[in-house]
């Protein structure tokens, strides 16, 4: 059995559309300093670092090596992990396994992106297979739009149901000083926003942000001394499925179901709706916030719209989702999923400020990227 591991510190930048005042290393440094401050540690306490982003978003090769001036990795072990949009989840699990292996006591994960510095859509389109699919691949929105159109027809859901998810996440962001988009919106606003790819509209979609996040993991024995209420990692799981976009079963979502099943099993969760107190989910579109709840076994097929309408996932509901405002309000891609883990940890640690959900003992964070690559983490206030 590996070493028990907990999150003991979280730091992030104030996310925004464009950070012209800092270069990448300086942006990373802001998050690193805040995480160290949060954990009341100095760089000397950090035994190893993991970092990640998306190469073609900043065009910096060997980011781990370049990052040293911001990450503090000088004469320390550092490695880079990256899996596209899910990079932040990959980073969190990488730092977790560093500690769980027993080889490192205190490890920092850093995710960052300066989306403002490139043409994100041009860069992302090169993720398609260059021989078969690159010529016509148009990004992630098409499949998600088609998925929701099918879902509406099959289960009688509406565009307004998705809009309610957008309203929830955007308005939750008003409580999060770090969020990028902080504007009160209504279902009407969402419905009236420009259609990007029917039925997905502008306010149903995530923005592009500049930002960084750092999360510090520590081993049992150290963790309790660093944090009064550490967020213990109970399980991490990942699943993906890709050869070609056309091969994926968009309706059955096998990788999300596999990830959720695996992470619940490892954490001993049988009924996620009852047993999980808060979720920070990587929802790139509001429509995912409707459909994916079902693939995560939170409710039965077709039941999600009713729970949304009843407010089950609102701040004062039974299972608050995205108190931070989620991906719809903040999306520095390489950091996005690490922010989910950091926010989930803050909820456990009772340090989430005005976005705090009362009495959180179990929290879940997810990551989504590549071609339906999902990662999930379960954190608890008690040790595994």
């Amino acid at each position, binding site marked *: 059995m590996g070493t028990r591991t907990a999150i003991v510190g979280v730091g992030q930048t104030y996310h925004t559309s464009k950070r012209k*005042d800092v*270069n990448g*290393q*300086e942006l990373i*440094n802001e998050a690193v300093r805040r995480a160290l401050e949060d954990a009341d540690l100095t760089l000397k306490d950090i035994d190893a670092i993991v970092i990640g982003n998306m190469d073609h978003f900043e065009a910096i090769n060997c980011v781990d090596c370049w990052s040293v001036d911001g990450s*503090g990795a*000088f004469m320390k072990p550092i490695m880079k992990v990256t899996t596209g949009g899910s990079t932040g989840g990959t980073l969190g699990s990488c730092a977790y396994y560093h500690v769980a292996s027993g080889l490192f006591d205190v490890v920092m994960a850093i995710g960052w992106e*300066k989306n403002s510095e490139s043409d994100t859509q041009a*860069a992302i389109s090169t993720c398609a297979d260059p*021989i078969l699919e690159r010529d016509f691949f148009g990004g992630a929105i098409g499949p998600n739009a088609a998925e929701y159109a099918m879902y509406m027809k099959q289960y009688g859901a509406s565009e307004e149901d998705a809009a309610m998810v957008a309203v929830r996440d955007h308005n939750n962001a008003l409580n999060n000083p770090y969020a990028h988009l902080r504007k009160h919106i209504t279902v009407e606003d969402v419905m009236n926003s420009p259609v990007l790819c029917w039925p997905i509209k502008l306010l149903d979609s995530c923005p592009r942000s500049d930002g960084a996040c750092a999360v510090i993991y520590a081993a049992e024995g150290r963790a309790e001394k660093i944090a009064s209420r550490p967020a213990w990692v109970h399980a991490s799981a990942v699943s993906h499925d890709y050869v070609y976009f056309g091969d994926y079963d968009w309706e059955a979502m096998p990788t999300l179901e596999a990830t959720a099943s695996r992470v619940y099993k490892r954490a001993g969760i049988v009924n996620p709706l009852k047993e999980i107190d808060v979720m920070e989910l990587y929802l790139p579109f509001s429509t995912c916030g409707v459909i994916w709840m079902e693939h995560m076994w939170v409710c039965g097929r077709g039941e999600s719209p009713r729970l949304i309408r009843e407010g089950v996932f609102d701040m004062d509901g039974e299972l608050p989702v995205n108190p931070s405002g989620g991906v719809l309000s903040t999306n520095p891609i390489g950091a996005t999923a690490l922010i989910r883990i950091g926010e989930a940890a803050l909820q456990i640690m009772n340090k989430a400020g005005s976005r705090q959900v009362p009495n959180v003992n179990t929290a879940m964070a997810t990551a989504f990227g590549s071609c339906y690559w999902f990662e999930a983490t379960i954190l608890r206030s008690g040790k595994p």
Partner: protein
Amino acid sequence: MENETTFEIQEKDGLLVHQGVIRVPYTWAAGEVASRFYAGLREKKVLGLRCPACKVVLVPPKKVCHRCFSDLTDWVEVGDEGVLQTFTVVHYSEPDLHPVEAPFAYGIIKLDGADTGMTHLIGEADIKGLKAGMRLKAVFRHQPQGNYLDIAYFKPIEEANHG
């Protein structure tokens, strides 16, 4: 939006090889520290940041000292002359990369008053006669553009007095 275009397919023994180019436009925020360094070069001044804890002057400057992780704010002007630490004469040509035609020399130059070296081009030099330890002087670009080549290159200083 200009990105990937498949423009040629090679065939060998029935196996196809597709060609393509990824073109993505980039901008890079220099940040306050590098912006100030480049503002200095416009006035033919080379600026560095001193780390009070490590007692070193970093040129080119950066916001954080990699050794002690302090925030650096103590600006100093260093000399535009310095000592060649190491060098290489490049004989191959890579026109899309190299700012000058081969053969040419790269060097690492520690400027007077600095504790770190600047990697740069060496120009106006007999490239067969380069030696570590020789003194070089920055030659500034006539019309600065705000990038690293606002120092066009470093040239050897004639040291008649020392033979």
